[in-house]
């Protein structure tokens, strides 16, 4: 994996964790149990963030979180496919 792709991946991970922390802090503002759910299940935090993005002013945070997650998942899948193809596990078309 090239240095640029690794840098993009690292940036996406950092953006994701920062967005997650922002959303979890807002969730704790709504109640401790909600915050706990946000910690143990980042998926729930993401859904909660989307449903409350207008009330909590999380529009930009949620956009950044989703984009960074999509890019990091995409890069990971592409990398794994490349590795599998290189290993001969998946025939290259």
């Amino acid at each position, binding site marked *: 994996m090239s240095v640029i792709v690794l840098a993009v991946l690292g940036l996406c991970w950092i953006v994701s*964790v920062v967005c997650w922390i922002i959303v979890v802090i807002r969730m704790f503002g709504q109640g*401790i149990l*909600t915050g*706990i759910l946000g*910690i143990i299940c980042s*998926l729930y935090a993401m859904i909660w963030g989307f449903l409350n993005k207008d009330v909590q002013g999380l529009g930009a945070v949620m956009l950044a979180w989703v984009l960074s997650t999509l890019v990091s998942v995409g890069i990971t899948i592409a990398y794994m496919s490349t590795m599998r193809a290189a290993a001969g596990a998946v025939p290259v078309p």
Partner: protein
Amino acid sequence: MEGSGAVAGSEGPARAAASFGPRLLAIVAVAAGLQVALVAAGLGGLPCPLASATGVPCPGCGMSRAIVALLRGDWAEMLRLHALAPLLVLAGASAAIVAVLPESRRARVLRALSVLESRRIVPLAALLLLCTYWLARLASGWRG
């Protein structure tokens, strides 16, 4: 909505449930089902932001795999991955049952839940349990 007034001043999941009701539950159910299905198929799922960025597993890391192990009946694997998985499954199942209850009964359950949340000792005890479990796992060398 009959229950809205009763829980309007409350906070946390009770208020969320009162505000979004079946809509929130449906979205969470679909997303959770998708996540568990992806993990069960060995395709991963939504990556943990903390573990991805820092390499340190979050308090919930291993939960999806633990739920898959629980659904397969592999209790030993479930305990190894995340011992609190049954609690989350129980909470999810309870939420699903509450969502299909008649309006009046649902309002009563939400009211009881908001009373439980307002007693700080219960959520704080849950938070303490989660943090203790997380730190114990980190101390034992757990890396997700």
